[in-house]
């Protein structure tokens, strides 16, 4: 276990380095965004002012010096957006509560719902229930958040007033209000994943059901439900959990850009959306680093959980 963690830590640092390098080259060097100094100086700046900023920000230094400095700033908490002038890390931290609330709530909803839906579809495979669920899953998968969100906000929010029109209320300002503002985003984000997960689970269950050990379980005299839960589901859920860990990491890392944007949920994804609009490369760079960090950490956690769930897997 200790060896696993150390190795994972080294791999994590290496991975973050590579990702940061690629993103840096992509965003800062290759992105045709004109000179960052001119951007900072504004449209009315004189060439002398631009030159001053170039020197002060170090845009005249070699690329690798700029890279090291930028990364030091991002990880040291002193990176500022060239566009807005805000502290990048503070903005991300400010967005995290909304994003984590969205991710965890939606994550549990889509996990539990897809377990129910997937199992039901599998045990009714080929029959009416299964067909209806298949169609619903397909609709869920092909329902983009901006569409579903738009429809919900217009009808349930604007017309009926049963959900707010958007925005995020922190937990500290009232759990009820927090919940009320999150219900629609949770639902919107979950629908997509429920569609995918329930399909995946349905097919893993149908694979597992034909396994020899399931026949053994029946031959032991277990009831249909005991066989299903203890032997089929217990084994079929393993891949679902590892999928879940990675998707959750995505959302925590600001991946739910569409959902956060359509509901004006001021989280990391919303910040990413705004940064893309303004070509705010420093902020984007920092968000990419957060996403990478979340994915790397959660995939290590997922592997640990995987090894617990499946004793044949060894951590290395």
């Amino acid at each position, binding site marked *: 276990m200790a060896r696993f963690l150390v190795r994972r830590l080294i791999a994590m640092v290496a991975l973050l380095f590579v990702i940061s390098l690629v993103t840096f080259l992509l965003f800062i060097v290759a992105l045709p965004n004109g000179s960052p100094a001119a951007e900072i100086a504004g449209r009315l700046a004189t060439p002398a002012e631009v030159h001053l900023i170039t020197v002060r920000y170090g845009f005249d230094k070699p690329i690798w010096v700029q890279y090291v400095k930028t990364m030091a700033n991002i990880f040291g908490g002193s990176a500022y957006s060239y566009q807005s002038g805000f502290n990048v890390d503070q903005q991300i931290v400010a967005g995290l509560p909304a994003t984590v609330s969205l991710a965890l709530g939606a994550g549990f909803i889509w996990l539990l719902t897809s377990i129910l839906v997937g199992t039901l579809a599998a045990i009714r495979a080929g029959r009416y229930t299964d067909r209806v669920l298949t169609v619903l899953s397909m609709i869920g998968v092909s329902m983009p958040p901006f569409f579903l969100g738009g429809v919900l906000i217009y009808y349930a929010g604007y017309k009926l007033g049963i959900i707010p029109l958007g925005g995020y209320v922190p937990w500290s300002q009232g759990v009820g209000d927090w919940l009320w503002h999150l219900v629609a985003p949770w639902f919107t984000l979950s629908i997509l994943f429920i569609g995918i997960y329930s399909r995946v689970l349905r097919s893993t269950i149908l694979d597992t059901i034909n396994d020899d*050990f399931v026949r*053994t379980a029946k031959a*032991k005299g*277990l009831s249909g439900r*005991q066989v299903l839960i203890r032997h089929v589901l217990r084994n079929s859920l393993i891949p679902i959990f590892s999928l879940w860990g990675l998707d959750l990491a995505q959302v925590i890392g600001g991946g739910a850009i569409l959902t956060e944007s359509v509901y004006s949920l001021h989280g990391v994804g919303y910040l990413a959306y705004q940064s893309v609009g303004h070509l705010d490369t420093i902020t984007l760079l920092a968000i990419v680093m957060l996403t990478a960090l979340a994915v790397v950490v959660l995939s290590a956690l997922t592997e640990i959980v995987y090894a617990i769930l499946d*004793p044949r897997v060894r951590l290395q």
Partner: protein
Amino acid sequence: MSAVEPLLEVEDLRVSFATEDGIVRAVDGVSFSVAPGEVLAIVGESGSGKSVTAMTLMGLTRGPNARIEGRATFAGKDLISASERDLQHIRGASMAMVFQDPMSSLNPVYRIGHQIVEQIRVHDRNVSRAQAMARAVELMERVGIPRAAERLRSYPHEFSGGMRQRVMIAMALSCSPKLLIADEPTTALDVTIQAQILEELRTLREQTDAGIILVTHDLAVVADIADRIVVMYSGRVVEQGTLDEIFYDPMHPYSWGLLGSITRVDRDRSQRLAAIPGMPPSLLHTPRGCHFRPRCVHAFGKCTEDPQLSARIPGNAEHRDRCWLELEQKRTLRMVGGQIGLASPEPVIS
């Protein structure tokens, strides 16, 4: 044997499955019985319906595409018409099964001990976990697993195939079944392990009064353990009788073929190993009349009529077969090169 009330009586069992290609008649009118303490071997090649017969008795072939008819009376209850709930109480308790592939028959995510305990406790809720564990250790020792108390905490992947099959047997024995069905229990194992597993079965039948159904394609396996043999071909019983009757006085050409294809130490090694020519018929389109007819060198006109499984030897009601040949013809035709076998259609050049 017939004086004892049979433990299991199967009458005219028919199992067919609806597939995309049509109806597959996997078991086509099979009847046999097993007495307490008796080992009945069901022998036949792949696709003869022997495994489906065994699974059907356990209620494991039930499904929307399966059609099961006939009767199988076990301890006064018909297994075919029994409710799923009734079957649950029988399965694993008074009737247990050991499967062919021990490598995949145990759930990889649970410890061995847990899997044995699960079966004990599902049939008797009054047994505590600790008691069940103690019983699991006993069972594992009984089937020859060393350091049983320790191995209880192992996972299946930490066991070899032979050890896993012992676990399967221990599990099957956990509720002291009256009937044990072993479906090719040694097929996936090394020959040395095979012998050990068969030894366990032999010990079991000596120690308990349980009846055993041993399903196998290997006549050599049954030679020193079976009391009676049922030979199946293409979903039907083609011959049944005692071990000696089948080995020394076989009546059906298919049985001759099976006997002829056993490797024997006392046979001339320059000879090629005999094989039955051709392939078993598809169960979608079984031949008219005797199912073995297309592969049988002794087939004649009458073989297009269905032969019934009946006693064809005067004075012996228990030895039955499904072959139209006359008794004396059979006894002459089955001798090939001084041994019992199925004559080749043309001389085999090795």
